[in-house]
């Protein structure tokens, strides 16, 4: 078996140690990757497809039709890009500028606020490699990496041995889970699972801060103070702690205030330092946030207008569709018709849609122009940003005649 490692782009972890056996230009066997990654890698090598009004067309005709739709639109929406490479994302930002479009990705209803706060340096953060080498306490808050990022615990946060953690997880690491249900991750955390009621996270944080400051922690749902103090004591003794923020926590908080205060208190009271890492799901959502931040100073929900940039919740995909503010949509690697609430998604059906996606989705079936691109990371290479902000480059595993997102966007730019 040759030791030529590939990168898996199945989730935000971007595991870079995957061995692949090929047979007739198709992935035959995958080693080390989890089931999510295997499914993602074996998805590749289908035929290319360009559909206009649901009928097969050639590439030039599809691109021409797509360009025409975008040209005729006054305020097109460019959405998706969580599963595109950094290079494709930068092109999409250029395209949105040229079109005076509204640009957003899934992070506006996902972990966008946390990534924004990290980029604005409101929180201390660290890389996953730091965590493997040093971390002694990991808190999974409103996240279930065992299901969403299967190799998170085994590759970085709990089980592996690192430079300063050579004696293994039983002796030197503590994994804590705070969630509303006993998830698979909570099962691994055993006694360190803290179950909060739905929407009870903000209060739990305040009580924990009180516990850390030597006061009696109180909650309206009467969480046992003894258990909270036990948690506070573990955190106080931590030398290198990390909080992995999941969607569960973010959806339960009105703003990031309590989380900022918790991190401040922890860094003040604990032996060592505490860091925050967002549990980004799509493999390059963080990349999109960083690329747009570098370009405009915002992470998502922007509208380009004659060289100026406007930002606000009204330019997020949900609000823009709700207000019917957009009159065409270019959707890249996302399926809003399935993922958004029906009351909002139905407004998409009133406008012409162009999709660029490796899969056939509900959105691509309803699209005026549907372009089936190559699976990025499997059929096309590039670079992406991992959930902790580290850039990872990757090469294609199999050859394909399907164009990558980047190539499609390049051709669209030329046609415009």
């Amino acid at each position, binding site marked *: 078996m040759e030791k030529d490692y590939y990168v898996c782009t199945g989730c935000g972890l971007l595991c870079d140690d995957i061995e692949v056996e090929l047979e007739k230009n198709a992935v035959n*066997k*995958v080693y080390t990757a989890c089931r999510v990654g295997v499914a993602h890698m074996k998805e590749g090598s289908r035929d290319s497809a360009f559909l206009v009004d649901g009928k097969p067309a050639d590439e030039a005709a599809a691109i021409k039709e797509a360009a025409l739709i975008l040209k005729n639109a006054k305020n097109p929406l460019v959405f998706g890009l969580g599963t595109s490479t950094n290079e494709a994302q930068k092109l999409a930002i250029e395209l949105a500028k040229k079109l005076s479009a509204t640009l957003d990705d899934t992070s506006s209803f996902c972990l966008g606020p946390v990534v924004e706060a990290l980029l604005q340096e409101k929180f201390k953060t660290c890389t996953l490699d730091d965590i493997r080498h040093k971390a002694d306490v990991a808190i999974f808050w409103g996240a279930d990496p065992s299901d969403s990022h299967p190799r998170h615990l085994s590759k970085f946060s709990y089980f*592996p*041995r690192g430079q300063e953690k050579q004696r293994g997880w039983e002796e030197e690491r503590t994994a804590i889970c705070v969630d509303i249900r006993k998830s698979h991750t909570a099962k691994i955390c055993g006694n360190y699972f803290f179950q909060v009621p739905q929407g009870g996270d903000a209060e739990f944080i305040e009580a924990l801060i009180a516990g850390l400051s030597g006061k009696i922690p109180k909650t309206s749902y009467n969480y046992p103070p003894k258990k909270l103090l036990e948690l506070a004591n573990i955190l106080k003794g931590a030398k290198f702690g990390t909080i992995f923020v999941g969607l569960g926590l973010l959806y339960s908080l009105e703003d990031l205030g309590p989380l900022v205060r918790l991190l401040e208190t922890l860094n003040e009271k604990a032996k060592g330092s505490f860091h925050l890492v967002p549990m980004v799901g799509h493999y390059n959502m963080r990349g999109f946030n960083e690329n747009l931040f570098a370009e405009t100073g915002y992470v998502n929900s922007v509208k380009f207008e004659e060289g100026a940039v406007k930002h606000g919740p009204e330019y997020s995909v949900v609000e823009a569709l709700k207000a019917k503010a957009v009159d065409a949509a270019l959707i890249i690697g996302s399926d809003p018709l399935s993922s958004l609430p029906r009351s909002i998604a139905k407004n998409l059906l009133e406008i012409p849609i162009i999709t660029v996606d490796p899969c056939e989705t509900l959105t691509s079936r309803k699209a005026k122009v549907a372009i089936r691109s190559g699976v990025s990371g499997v059929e096309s290479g590039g670079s992406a940003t991992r959930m902790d902000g580290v850039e990872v480059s990757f090469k294609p595993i199999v050859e394909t005649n399907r164009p990558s997102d980047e190539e499609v966007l390049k051709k669209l730019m030329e046609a415009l």
Partner: protein
Amino acid sequence: MTNAMEIYQMLPKTNCKKCGKTSCMAFAVALMARELTADDCPPLIEESKYKENYEKISGLFKTSEGATETGLIVHEDLCFGCGNCVVACPVNVANDPYGVGSGKAPSKTEKLILIIEDGIVKAQNVGECRRFGKNKILCNGCIVTCPVEAIEFV
């Protein structure tokens, strides 16, 4: 898991001794200890009124098929390849500390007990397992780290 009494209830309860045991209760205990299988009870197979019970009892012990010499069973339908067991297994760590012991891809696959293949854990070299051999101990490193109870020892 079930107990001998529950299995006894499903047997013919005639104490015919055809299985070589003195009573049906003794047969149930032998089944539990995996000395005999449901196929060793002739009435259970031959008489149609016991057909349902025969299938039930065979189903109960089905998991032990496919077990390795150490009794390790991987439930492939449950496993999703997180690799916790691969990284936590003490033998894996000792044999490949800079590969799987550090959470990375294995560098010496031939010496490992557990590896991930196509997203599912695969047991090999089970003779190296700490539950096997002369100085065996009841190590449970791979069981307690599995979030979905996909690994079992029988």
